[in-house]
């Protein structure tokens, strides 16, 4: 092992998804991987950039990140954020497959004396865990079993869609009922419930604009988790984590429910199971609804 990745943290790493960033870095380090950040990374444009500025300017954002990554070496680019992965991977694909876009983007990059040829691989951290690290190594690193915890593995949308099943996306799982997250959960010794809503959309990308029109989506997800007796929900997506956690109050008000279900990242589970520090590595202090049962397991 001891492989090195160029790491793209993304905007949420400095905001709502700091605990994903912290726990990802801790888990990857524990597994023997080195992450080197893109030096002066910028936003990927998320899912609304296109609407504001159109396709090319949005793509130019990712192109700049990729150009920098290439300057830092040929190693694969890894990111833990679903939206960052989607945009960066998609732009990378387009540069490879579409001569016109490649030329246009290089013309834009040229305005800052940069260029990029599409030769890097952009990978999602979950795919790296499945394909490079492997489930055996993950199990091997578990020193602190989380047995007794029931966890709903909530994958969300953009982590798997639309690339998880494609060859260049690593072909590591399928779109509707992927199992990799349950595999992670079970590897920690916790029990993954059979969560049918694992890829139902939470509405995260428009929740700020139209909270009322997306509450029913989250209500459905939370209801199943609660009905099936989950102690907490685990997700790999920063938008899902914030969204599903943050809106429980509003949902309770609208639907007369009393949800108070912690929502953690899979990497927080892994960090605790690897025997790492609850705060420094797993960043459990950053969950608004505290994951007390997980904290109690931490060494």
């Amino acid at each position: 092992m001891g492989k090195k990745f160029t790491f793209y943290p993304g905007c949420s790493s400095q905001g709502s998804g700091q605990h994903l960033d912290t726990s990802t870095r801790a888990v990857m380090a524990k597994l023997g991987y080195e992450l080197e950040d893109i030096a002066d990374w910028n936003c990927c444009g998320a899912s609304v950039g296109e609407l504001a500025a159109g396709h090319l300017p949005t793509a130019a954002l990712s192109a700049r990140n990729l150009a920098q990554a290439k300057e830092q070496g040929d190693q694969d680019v890894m990111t833990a954020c679903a939206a960052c992965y989607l945009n960066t991977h998609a732009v990378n694909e387009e540069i490879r497959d579409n001569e016109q876009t490649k030329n246009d983007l290089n013309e834009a990059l040229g305005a800052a004396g940069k260029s990029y040829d599409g030769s890097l691989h952009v990978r999602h951290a979950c795919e790296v865990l499945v394909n490079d690290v492997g489930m055996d190594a993950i199990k091997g690193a578990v020193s602190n079993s989380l047995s007794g915890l029931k966890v709903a593995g909530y994958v969300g949308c953009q982590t798997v869609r639309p690339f998880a099943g494609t060859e260049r996306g690593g072909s590591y799982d399928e779109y509707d009922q992927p199992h990799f997250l349950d595999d992670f959960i079970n590897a920690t010794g916790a029990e993954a419930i059979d969560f049918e809503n694992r890829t139902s959309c939470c509405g995260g990308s428009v929740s700020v604009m139209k909270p009322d029109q997306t509450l029913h989506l989250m209500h459905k997800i939370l209801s199943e988790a609660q009905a099936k007796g989950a102690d907490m929900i685990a997700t790999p997506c920063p938008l899902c984590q914030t969204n599903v956690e943050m809106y429980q109050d509003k949902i309770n008000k609208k639907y007369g429910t009393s949800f108070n279900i912690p929502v953690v990242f899979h990497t927080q589970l892994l960090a605790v199971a690897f025997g790492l520090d609850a705060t420094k590595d797993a960043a459990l202090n950053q969950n608004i609804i505290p994951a007390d049962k997980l904290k109690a397991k931490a060494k």
Partner: protein
Amino acid sequence: MNAISPNPTQKYDLSFARWVRDNIDGGERMNMCMQCGVCSGSCPLSDQMDLGPRKIFQMVRAGMKEAVLKSNSFYQCVSCYNCVVRCPRQVPVKYILHGLGRLAVQEGYQPKSNVENARFADAFWWSVTTFGKTDERLVTAKYYFSGGLMNGIKLGLGNLKTALGMIKTKRMHLGAPHKAKNRGELKAILAKAVEIQARHEGEA
């Protein structure tokens, strides 16, 4: 009005389908749609769309440009990509919807003030171009106030508890926004990209 597609005022526009094919990202595959409805059936928001994706594509073919561009559907999309991975004809549904949504705003079929997504997107883009990064707090605030002062205060107060939670867990950052370092470089790249895009639209 930025009349980039032909005959923006015509009710039925027979060349609309062709124009979408040639100019909207992913539009070249729209012709392959076989009207199975898997996209509409898969969409978690289709109950809130006035027209499902399937119907939109058929209306594009029928040349119903105005009716299509007045649809609210584009702004309901949450980018879940269900439609994209499930379409049996590999139509990149989501991409086409987003492209049409942008066209609708650009051509004035959708007054920006009515389109939350467009305002949010503007706020977002402002943050990106100004700081190189998204500052969630500032984007949200700017978005809230983009619908008017009173509206902003109302929305802000409604979300106060959430915001406090974020602040407490240090996930909302109160100081100066995070910034990319070489913002001049980024601005130059984006300006160029905008220029190239405009150039292509002029060609079409």
